[in-house]
């Protein structure tokens, strides 16, 4: 407000401080435009945050409090009992050892699946980018088109193949399935990345007599850290969150966490323990959430890159 008086310049001895306008036109902090922009964003943010809030709040309440109060009320008495129960003793069909079993199954599925799928796809993308052979583009096209085919169409033939090999229902089978269905998008990602690297590098290495694997290991790999990180984020979240393949290709004692979670919450018998359910839900969502919060920007870039080109 004081500035206005200065600009007005009515009083002679204030004139000195006015040395002409410079810099960009100052924007008032409170304007109709800002109120609309921030107001809308704030309301939207609340909508997106409410489920997280409800999950956390519910998981910290005891059952009597849940029956009494509404789901948005903060807990009067914080208890971690539901968390312990969800992790260690909740019943999923046959066994009653909570989500812990599913958690370790998911770890044992996700870690090898991520490593195998990225290893295959990176070599594959490299071959496609730098060592094209007759037909390679055709196979690649089939692979990419295949990514759009609903999984339901291919599930049963895979069941048969896995059964014939004798690994149906085992974690190995699921790892193979994840590697197969991760291949299109990952191969595309790696191929596009390797194509974008300067060709001179590759040519120079060839002139020096380096072969297929040498160039890959000594030149391409060290330059591709960013794309590996992106691929890893995509795969970790994708495989951890998978439900369909888990339910089709595993048995109850090898169920991943998502399948177990669904069984805990949607089991018909007994009183529904909403607090345990919500604790279980948070536990299941925790790994991808941690990946997301830790990798922040990379996750965003990964989705944008993987998607815009896909």
């Amino acid at each position, binding site marked *: 407000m004081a500035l206005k008086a200065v600009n007005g310049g009515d009083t002679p001895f204030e004139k000195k401080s006015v040395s002409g306008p410079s810099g960009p036109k100052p924007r008032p902090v409170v304007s109709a435009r800002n109120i609309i*922009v921030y107001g*809308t*964003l704030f309301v*939207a943010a609340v909508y*997106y945050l409410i*489920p997280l809030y*409800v*999950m956390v709040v519910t998981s910290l309440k005891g059952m009597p409090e*849940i029956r009494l109060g*509404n*789901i948005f009320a903060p807990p009067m008495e914080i208890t971690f009992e539901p968390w312990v129960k969800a992790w260690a003793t909740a019943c999923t069909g046959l066994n009653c050892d909570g989500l812990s079993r599913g958690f370790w199954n998911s770890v044992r599925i996700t870690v090898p699946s991520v490593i195998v799928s990225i290893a*295959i796809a990176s070599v594959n993308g*490299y*071959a496609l980018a730098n*060592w094209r*052979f*007759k037909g390679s583009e055709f196979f*690649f096209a*089939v*692979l990419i088109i*295949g990514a*759009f*085919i*609903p999984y*339901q*169409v*291919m*599930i*049963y033939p*895979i069941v*048969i193949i896995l059964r014939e090999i004798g690994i149906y229902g085992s974690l190995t089978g699921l790892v193979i399935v994840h*590697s*197969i269905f991760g*291949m299109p998008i990952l*191969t595309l990602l790696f191929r596009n990345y390797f194509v974008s690297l300067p060709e001179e590098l590759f040519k120079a290495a060839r002139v020096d007599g380096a*072969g*297929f694997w040498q160039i890959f290991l000594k030149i391409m790999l060290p330059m591709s850290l960013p794309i590996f990180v992106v691929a890893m984020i995509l795969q970790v*979240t994708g495989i951890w*969150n998978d*439900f*369909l393949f888990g339910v*089709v290709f595993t048995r109850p004692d090898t169920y991943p966490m*998502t399948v177990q*979670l*669904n069984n805990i*919450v*949607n089991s018909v018998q007994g009183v529904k323990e*909403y607090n345990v359910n*919500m604790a279980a*839900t948070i536990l*299941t969502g925790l790994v*991808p*959430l941690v990946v*997301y*919060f830790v990798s922040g920007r990379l*996750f965003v870039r990964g*989705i944008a890159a993987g*998607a*815009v080109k*896909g």
Partner: protein
Amino acid sequence: MTGQAKAGRPFKLFRNLNSKIASIPMILTAMVIFLGGTIWTVVYSFTNSKLLPRLNFVGIEQYQRLWAAPRWVVSIENLAIYGILSLIFSLVIGFMLAALMDQKIRFENTFRTIFLYPFALSFIVTGLVWQWILNPEFGVQAVVRSLGWTSFSFDPLYTSEIVIYGVLIAALWQGTGLVMCLMLAGLRGIDEDIWKAARVDGIPMWRTYLFVIIPMMRPVFITTLVIIASGIVKVYDLVVAQTSGGPGISSEVPAKYVYDYMFQAQNLGQGFAASTMMLVTVAIIIIPWAYLEFGGGRKRG
């Protein structure tokens, strides 16, 4: 690279051998799983396989039964409602959020984190949370009633007519963040000068968006559309977690139909026919897109 070794090699097959070896997983996946598996399923959809796949052809009988089944018809209707609405809403909401985020706002990272975090969560988690929030005894309905409006009714998951909209709410919560992210990337790719020119010409902001910016973002819109659309056809986990297809059969979707017939009802033929119909649906979406993008002589500049 292949050209230099052209002359005088006896076995063409061994040229670029390492590259071919490295591509074996891809070739196997593409040809055996994707192509082979699809053909296999389509072929067996014309048989009367029950518990085990059997090559006993019965023509289009499975398809006739499929379309005569009320549950399948409901599934298709649900998919149509859910699909159209989630396309429209996620594009509109996603674009509007992106446009707001593009106004050089403060705390952009915070807002983006908040909008996008649901995308990191699985559909199972999403479905279970919204099942809880929309629970009429404890959730939104109970809260509004306890404020004094005792006749207030909002229980989408327990009313057959509107259950699919309850699923839609959860789906939008999970997916709009991604759309926003893609749109924001698209908006950032547009030259600042275009905005300046529009401002100089005195064109109002909404008209600039509608007639200049959106047409320029065509590729982003198309990819987003394809991503959303192929996700819609596959929707399965969300329904399983949120409603298990109920009440009754009112929130069934095709993907769930396929799963139930293949692995629970042990009526493989029905499952194959239903999944073939899903394949046809996707083809209807993808082929025009592929034609626009890659065929038709590339009209884009």
